[in-house]
């Protein structure tokens, strides 16, 4: 595939798009793990959502 004189521009566009998408996915995955871990830690320390209605609780 010959992309002519502007190969680098085209390649950069595709790579940048890929990079941003990967960063987004990575951020979301890490965020998910963090929240899950915190939730587990809190539940282990004896706080459960049943021990009283929490205020901003999303029932």
């Amino acid at each position, binding site marked *: *595939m*010959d*992309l*002519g*004189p*502007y*190969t680098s*521009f*085209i390649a*950069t*566009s*595709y790579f*940048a*798009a890929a990079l*941003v*998408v990967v*960063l*987004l*996915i990575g*951020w*979301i995955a890490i*965020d*998910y793990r963090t*929240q*899950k871990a*915190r*939730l587990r830690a*809190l*539940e282990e*320390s004896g*706080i*459960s*959502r049943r*021990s*009283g*209605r*929490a*205020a*901003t*609780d*999303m*029932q």
Partner: protein
Amino acid sequence: MSLIDLANPTRFLALTARLLPWLALVTVVLLAAGLYLSALAPDDYQQGATVKIMFIHVPNAWLSMFVWGIMSIASLGTLVWRHPLADVAAKAAAPIGASFTFLALLTGSLWGRPMWGTYWEWDARLTSVLILFLMYLGLMALWRSVEDPTRAARAAAVLTLVGAINLPIIKFSVDWWNTLHQPASVMRMGGPALDKSFLIPLLVMAIGFSFLFITLHVAAMRNEILRRRVRSLQMLQARAYTTSAPAGDATGRVVGAA
């Protein structure tokens, strides 16, 4: 499973847990097909191979506006119907929308260099997209800077709705100001004016990116719901050793009410 059920965060979590893999699969298939098709697409007689940038640029440009549209609807949900998932949806969408906007700007200026001879031009559309990007960042800053989520949600909702005014400006700026940028050639009155050999890969890519957005958005909404659970549990924990009240009276029961 009705819509009403979806309104319930717990149900939402359960349902999306099953849905997410499928969404991801569809996204991957569509994007792969889109990349394949765009690799096959011929060079433009005018723009040469750089037309390939279009397959990234245009979907991202569309999504940058589309995501704000979604956030505006969600904001109505927050302000008018006080829907429990609405502000979760709005908050989760903002970083994703900002990313798409960033990509539209970046690929656009990478395209602009070979086409117009400059990376950046203070043209109406380009600048209004830059403003959209700034508004995304401002909105994210607003979310971060108010720590009570319900209050932050309402403030952000007002701003999102007011900022939606920017969307028509972006869409029509090319027509109003008669600028460098391409006028609409796909989404326009009277049908698309683009050759099939470009139109098909473009549309596949666009649908692929839309599915990418949906997948990421659902995942981010799940994270947000979890974050709020964590917060409310932390609040409960604070209360648990806060109240000098007798044990078991964690809810601040009222004594001696009239």
